[in-house]
């Protein structure tokens, strides 16, 4: 059990974070961008819980990850409402079409 330690979990969290960032940057589908945000928050959660086990953080890390999960659910609800509104106005979910505010 000593073979994994903190570094393995931090590596998994880093992979999740980077995949989320790439997903946010490259997807043109609005729902895909939302999935990238979920991946980023999930990577942060892995780091929180890993530090709660292996560091001196204790239960605080788990409670922080609980708050992150709840905020991610709230963010998904609001962002989905915005995406539906965008689809009603543009008849497409392509985020490159939202150019009304471009100067």
């Amino acid at each position, binding site marked *: 059990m000593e073979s*994994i330690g903190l570094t393995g*979990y931090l590596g998994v969290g880093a992979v*999740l974070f980077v*995949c989320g960032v790439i997903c946010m940057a*490259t997807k*043109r589908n609005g729902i895909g961008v939302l999935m990238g945000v979920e991946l980023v928050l999930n990577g942060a959660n892995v780091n929180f819980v890993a530090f709660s086990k292996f560091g001196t953080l204790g239960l605080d890390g788990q*409670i922080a990850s609980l708050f992150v999960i709840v905020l991610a659910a709230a963010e998904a609800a609001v962002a989905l409402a915005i995406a*539906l509104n965008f689809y*009603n106005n543009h008849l497409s979910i392509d985020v490159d079409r939202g150019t009304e505010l471009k100067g």
Partner: protein
Amino acid sequence: METFLFLLFGLAAAGGAVMVVLNQDVVRMAFWLIVSLASTACLFFLLGADFVGAVQLLIYVGGTVVLLIFGVMLTSSGPYLRIKSSPGEVLQAVVVGGLFLGMLVLTVMQVDWDRHESRLQAEYGGGPANDVGYNQQGEGSTVRNIGAALLGARFDADPQHPDRVKPGYLLPFEIISMHLLVVLIGAAYIARAKRKRPDSQSSSS
């Protein structure tokens, strides 16, 4: 055994995230997102955080992904199901992401976590992972402590310093409950049905 389980679920989580990036079909992206999030919940169970793992399964896999799939169903009509990114953008993002991942992994590898933790333990006393009743191997019952901490009481005090009371989380709990109420009202307000399509301007709205 724990190493095997970590390798299994860690590879499933990372591979699911990579497949979310690589797929262009939104429904398949949602499926791989479910794989990645469920594997992350199993990693949480492996870390002894049973309540956080259960909440991850319930809210993320059961709630958020279902919400995203509803969004896919409501917004994907015919030709807009697949929206390709140009290959130049993908190549650029992969190069930048690879550099970013290399930076993160190098940073994690270069920090000496054991020495850091021993320094922290010398300064603040024993880590909570060493406390009796917290998160021991094979125990992992954190539900009672988390529930008490969310209501402002802490039962997982440091046995070496019983006078040093950790703060509870009553105020963040209240703030987040108000936040959820505001989000509920705001989402219902934003997503309310109003027909303002550009092709139906002449019809009655």
